């Protein structure tokens, strides 16, 4: 059995992951994907977990209504600032999905 991941354990003081009786809860599949992507890229060494966590805390402090919306914004801003992708690239791709120009199954 896996012990508690220290990355997750240190997400507290306002940045704690939503849980239902101790379990992580994803209300919609995209929340799970957003969660998984941020953890994977950290595992692969793209950034230190604290870099992500600091942005998440900031996003939450700005008062985004939903936890995973903050998570997504923090992840996007980190990738953009790191030069992994540009704002335009990301925006264009998102609108292609939103307008169904691009098939959401890949």
């Amino acid at each position: 059995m896996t012990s508690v991941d220290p990355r997750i354990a240190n997400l507290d003081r306002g940045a704690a992951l939503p849980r239902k009786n101790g379990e992580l809860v994803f209300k919609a599949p995209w929340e799970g994907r957003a969660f998984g992507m941020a953890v994977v890229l950290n595992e692969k060494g793209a950034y230190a977990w604290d870099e992500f966590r600091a942005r998440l805390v900031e996003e939450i402090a700005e008062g985004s209504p939903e936890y995973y919306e903050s998570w997504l914004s923090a992840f996007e801003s980190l990738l953009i600032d790191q030069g992994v992708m540009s704002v335009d690239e990301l925006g264009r791709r998102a609108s292609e999905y939103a307008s169904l120009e691009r098939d959401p199954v890949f």
Partner: protein
Amino acid sequence: MTKHDHHEQGDHGHHPEAPSDLEARTLALESLLIEKGLLTSEDVDRIISAYEHDIGPMIGARVVAHAWVDPDYRARLLNDGPAAIRELGYDYPTSTGLTVLEITEKVHHMVVCTLCSCYPWAVLGLPPTWYKSAPYRSRAVSEPRLVLEEFGVALPADVSVNVWDSSSDLRYMVLPERPEGTGGWTEEQLASIVSRDCMIGVARPRVPAEANR
């Protein structure tokens, strides 16, 4: 919390209509990261699955480990499961009871939900797929010894088997026997050998072979 677990997880499948803004942003991120060779969909699947399934039983495992090292706590746990779980700082819903079943040399316990998939997910995480299957739900009652054997738990004839049917109001968690060869282990080490299946009653905690070398 809903009364039953079986409809809690919607199966959304494909998107017949346009994705929401948040969905579109997530799709954009994942597709771009894949194209750039930074991750694969399988990487993401693996993380989601690990967090949903493997880390799930951690609360139950810690409760069991604590009961193994502290006889007074063990007594409180058997007497009032939810209160003892809260005592360790975990949440336990007030709407559902939890009875903790102690395995002894002469009595084995296993848990099922014959009607659906009532499960103590507050302490064990998400139920495994087999727990929800029709064969397990019926055979756990009709031929528990055979089912246990299939899971790798062979019981001598003089050990009785109690099968407990979970309901929406009352859930069960099995307190397995502490295995030999774990003297001097820390609670964390002990918790690491208490699997989800041990707390459903279809497995025994196992001391890894290297620990005895």
